[in-house]
């Protein structure tokens, strides 16, 4: 477990975050490294009180997690979160929630030392959900646990009734809710879903366990006796069969200490005493019951045997045992504990028998011994291993050796004579240490309404008459922990005199969960139905106010926008995005853009999505020719949900932008006034469908542009330095499409210059046709080579090229501010374009610029 750093100063990273987020309180109970993640997790009206990294054990699972305490209107909830990604960019996803209300419990254990580091442990439960929290002990962890405790205490003293904790729901699926929209992080989402569904079924079944299990009362008999190494007496019936004659216990757990004090017992695994005693025990169990031995475990002098009535044996499962020596080197089993665990129907039960350090002054040793057994005794055949605390019911017996302090033998004798046992309890070390929360936290013990069981003169009922005259003590005890356990009786038996201890018994009526198979199946099926329904119901839902957007007539390079509204009408937060078209195509044709094209909507929230059409030089020719449909269906996809189609229609007004030089020189009617079919025919076969027998040398449109530039003056600085406005560009386009010749274009020189570039880059086939592209680059080395390429061009291309070069030379002469290589770069980019699939590289760009450069600096000879 990585140690949680103690809180450092709060950084302001979170502030630049796009999402609103909860108030994050920079308290001492907060691991500051998680602040950015918390800002994403916690909504604005909640407050993160604390946060630590920890280990969480749930049943058999033990996983590293992050525990967060959140507050909303003075109510608190503990979130158990999975941490995804590395700090400081980690994301927290809550996979279970423990509202701190009447159903909540917290049980803080004393700080223990595990493998050299100190660990703070707390048991948390909410209804039937249980888990164990462990964190490296430091100020942050300590305060964090205290904050939970405090919240729990406060929850009992609220002056307003507790809410239904619906506010916690927001964390249920937060993996999707507050996740930053960063598609790269999304890959693990699937796993997350898998885990949560798995958890959900388990949890839901567990939460409804009450409905398909019934609590059956079982009689559980526990007995403990330190037999001082003696052979068993004639019969143990008085002790073991002391229950009501017609009520045989269902379960027996009998613990012995000092069963065998012989040296051999330390050396050999086998002990003849074990057999003797075991046999005697079996003979002495309740005569009305038939018992099956489930397990016997022995560690030198400590032995624990568990029996169940035969009729229950089929319902006992997962039996395991282990022992833990706390003597010298933890090996010599003169002190320590043994345990047996089992599942009886669906209740897990653990029995522990222990023998703790002796002598009145060794209280600390006893405490240490107890906590060692509690923390280290584990059942390793279980997968994963189960500790003592991970059981529904724990029965802990043994010779605990805790003494009566600050009293005298006389006083004890006096009190016992008066049946005034309670005056002794106050002096009992065990009760004292338990009250100080050092040992037996969460355990209960019944009233000790019997005489201290130690130390007697062997063979008598007299307390120690030796010189030492020890003060009698309640060494032999039985405590329990768990729900639905009622103690029926707790007493000792004086008539056994072989030992210096008297045997003790405690009998319980314990609620054991018995599964009703039929009910269980019913509930399971109901649950599956419910899950199906939830899966359907909890799918993201949105409405869009417009499924169909008609853009009407759209012109070249004209920006047109339409919007629609998307509203989250479902029960969960929605992430939407426009889905890519099949074959890896963009989500829409190049001339269509959606803004935003993805986003997140909280419940009830809506957002406007703007679709914008802009037919640029790249799409102009295809649309002119009707090669590309003027409609589109966008697929608006909801993550984990449905797809919605948004239809877009427009009517593109064909234009001289996007025509070919061949077509442009062969027509008289302005392109904008031609029917589209005529234009398509002209483009398909310019010679055959020509309007002009003898074509113009260069397109009239180009001439109009040049003329306008000349009129507006070429001398005023860099005419390509600025772009024209939307309106200006449309004015020029309109003039060209209708061929209004010498119309005084009321636009800036920059707008006309931009149109020149647009015109050239929209040409269906560039001035240097695609098929000459490579040749052109290869011949860029010398002017002579470059010239020979131009000689090969089709006539209109050659003529247009010459026309442009002459214009550029004039421009260079008139405008002192324009540099030749800049001009060469700008114009080569629109005149010398790579074929459709051609990739541009910086070196190719340089070469084409050099190609044109030759013509600009030399006398034009083409």
């Amino acid at each position, binding site marked *: 477990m990585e140690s949680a750093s103690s809180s450092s100063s709060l950084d302001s990273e979170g502030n630049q975050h796009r999402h609103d987020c909860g108030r994050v309180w920079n308290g001492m109970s907060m691991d500051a490294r998680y602040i950015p993640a918390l800002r994403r997790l916690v909504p604005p009206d909640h407050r993160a009180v604390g946060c630590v990294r920890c280990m969480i054990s749930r049943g058999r699972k033990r996983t590293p997690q992050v525990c967060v305490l959140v507050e909303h209107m003075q109510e608190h909830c503990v979130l158990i979160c999975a941490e995804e990604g590395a700090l400081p960019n980690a994301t927290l996803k809550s996979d279970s929630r423990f509202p701190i209300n009447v159903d909540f419990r917290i049980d803080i254990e004393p700080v223990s030392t595990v493998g050299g580091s100190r660990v703070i442990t707390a048991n948390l439960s909410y209804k039937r959900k249980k888990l164990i929290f462990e964190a490296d002990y430091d100020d942050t962890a300590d305060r964090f646990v205290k904050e939970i405790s405090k919240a729990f205490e406060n929850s009992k003293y609220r002056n307003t009734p507790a809410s239904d904790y619906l506010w916690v729901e927001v964390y249920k699926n937060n993996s999707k809710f507050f996740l930053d929209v960063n598609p790269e992080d999304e890959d693990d989402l*699937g796993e997350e*879903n898998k885990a949560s569904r*798995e958890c959900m*079924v388990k949890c839901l079944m567990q939460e409804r366990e009450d409905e398909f299990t019934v609590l059956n009362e079982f009689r559980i008999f526990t007995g403990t006796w330190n037999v001082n190494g003696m052979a068993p007496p004639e019969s143990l019936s008085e002790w073991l069969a002391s229950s009501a004659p017609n009520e045989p216990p269902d379960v027996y757990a009998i613990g012995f200490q000092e069963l065998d004090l012989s040296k051999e017992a330390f050396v050999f695994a086998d002990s003849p005493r074990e057999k003797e005693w075991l046999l005697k025990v079996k003979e002495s169990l309740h005569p009305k019951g038939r018992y099956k031995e489930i397990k016997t475990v022995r560690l030198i002098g400590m032995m624990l045997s568990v029996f169940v009535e035969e009729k229950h044996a089929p319902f006992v499962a997962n039996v395991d045992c282990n022992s833990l020596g706390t003597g010298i080197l933890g090996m010599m089993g003169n002190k320590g504990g043994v345990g047996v665990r089992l599942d009886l129907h669906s209740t897990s039960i653990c029995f522990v028998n222990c023998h703790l350090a002796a002598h009145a002054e060794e209280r600390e040793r006893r405490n240490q011994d107890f906590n060692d057994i509690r923390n280290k005794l584990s059942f390793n055949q279980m997968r994963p291993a189960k500790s003592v605390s991970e059981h529904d019911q724990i029965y802990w017996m043994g010779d605990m050796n805790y003494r009566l302090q600050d009293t005298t033998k006389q006083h004890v004798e006096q009190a016992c004579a008066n049946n005034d046992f309670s005056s002794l309890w106050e002096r009992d070390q065990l009760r004292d240490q338990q009250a100080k929360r050092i040992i037996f936290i969460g355990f209960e013990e019944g009233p000790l309404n019997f005489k201290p069981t130690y130390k007697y003169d062997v063979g008598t009922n007299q307390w120690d008459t030796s010189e030492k005259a020890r003060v009698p003590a309640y060494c032999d005890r039985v405590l329990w922990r768990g729900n639905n356990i009622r103690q029926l009786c707790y007493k000792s038996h004086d008539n056994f005199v072989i030992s210096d201890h008297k045997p003790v018994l405690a009998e319980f009526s314990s609620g054991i969960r018995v599964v009703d198979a039929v009910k269980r199946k019913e509930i399971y099926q109901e649950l599956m139905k419910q899950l199906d329904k939830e899966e*359907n119901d909890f799918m993201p839902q949105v409405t869009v106010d417009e499924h169909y957007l008609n853009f009407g007539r759209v012109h070249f390079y004209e920006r047109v926008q339409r919007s629609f509204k998307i509203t989250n009408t479902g029960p969960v937060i929605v992430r939407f995005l426009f*889905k890519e078209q099949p074959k890896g195509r963009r989500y829409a044709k190049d001339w269509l853009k959606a803004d935003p094209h993805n986003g997140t909507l909280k419940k009830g929230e809506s957002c406007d999505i703007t679709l914008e059409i802009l037919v640029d030089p790249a799409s102009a020719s295809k649309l002119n020719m009707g090669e590309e449909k003027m409609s589109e269906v966008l697929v608006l996809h909801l993550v*984990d949900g449905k797809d919605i*189609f948004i239809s877009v229609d427009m009517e593109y007004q064909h234009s001289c932008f996007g025509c070919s030089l061949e077509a442009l020189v062969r027509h008289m009617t302005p392109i904008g006034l031609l029917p589209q079919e005529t234009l398509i025919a002209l483009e398909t076969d310019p010679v055959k469908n020509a309007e002009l027998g003898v074509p113009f040398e260069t397109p009239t449109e180009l001439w109009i542009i040049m003329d306008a530039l000349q009129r507006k003056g070429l001398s005023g600085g860099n005419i390509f330095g600025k772009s024209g406005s939307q309106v200006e560009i449309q004015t020029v386009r309109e003039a060209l499409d209708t061929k209004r010749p010498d119309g005084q274009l009321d636009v800036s020189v920059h707008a006309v210059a931009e149109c020149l570039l647009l015109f050239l880059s929209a040409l269906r086939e560039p001035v240097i046709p695609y098929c000459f592209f490579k040749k052109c680059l290869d011949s860029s080395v010398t002017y002579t080579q470059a010239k020979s390429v131009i000689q090969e061009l089709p006539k209109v291309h050659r003529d247009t090229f010459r026309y442009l070069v002459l214009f550029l030379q004039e421009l260079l002469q008139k405008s002192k501010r324009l540099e030749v290589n800049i001009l060469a770069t700008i114009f080569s980019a629109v005149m010398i374009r790579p074929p459709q699939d051609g990739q541009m590289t910086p070196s190719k760009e340089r070469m084409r610029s050099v190609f044109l450069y030759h013509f600009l600096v030399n006398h034009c000879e083409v």
Partner: protein
Amino acid sequence: MRTISRTDRSRDAVRCTTMTESGPYNYSYIFKYIIIGDMGVGKSCLLHQFTEKKFMSDCPHTIGVEFGTRIIEVAGQKIKLQIWDTAGQERFRAVTRSYYRGAAGALMVYDVTRRSTYNHLSSWLTDARNLTNPNTVIFLIGNKSDLEAQREVPYEEAKQFADENGLMFLECSAKTGDRVEDAFLETARKIYQNIQDGNLDLNAAESGVQHKPQTQNTLLGNIQDKKESCNC
């Protein structure tokens, strides 16, 4: 070559959510279904009736693709059906075609009270045949059988069409719920039988079936391939 949008992958993940150890919660297969047919024939109502056991009397046209899931049992095996309900409008035909791929079952629906919806079946069938794999179970459904008085397509005629084209067939009513379950379940049984007979290669991306052995947490076959199965 194909790019799959991430979102589909996460949806895909939902499709393989299963329990690992507690046997009874497990389902071993996921079948993808698509529902196709002219607009207004009752595709969405059928889905709703199957998942929610309710009839929607004024169901808006589906403009997109909707989802429903339900876990069923066939031969003691739990099977999760993941059903994609498509828009029937002609103008979306090109887009909805991209959803056919990877379907294990195709429910092809017409409306017994409108002959035109029956007449269009051959075109739907062509799509279904061309865009799914050869083992995809195509089930013909004549919906709105409750409207006997308005019937335009006799049962026998459709039955003959189904037989000629090797389709499974039944008439049902999304309104009364009559035989709706049968349509979905019989399709699943047929798919399951194909698996048992070894006709279906579960490793193939297009099979539309994901198998999950009860004891393991992994999908059989190449997950990457499966991920593609839900998209284009």
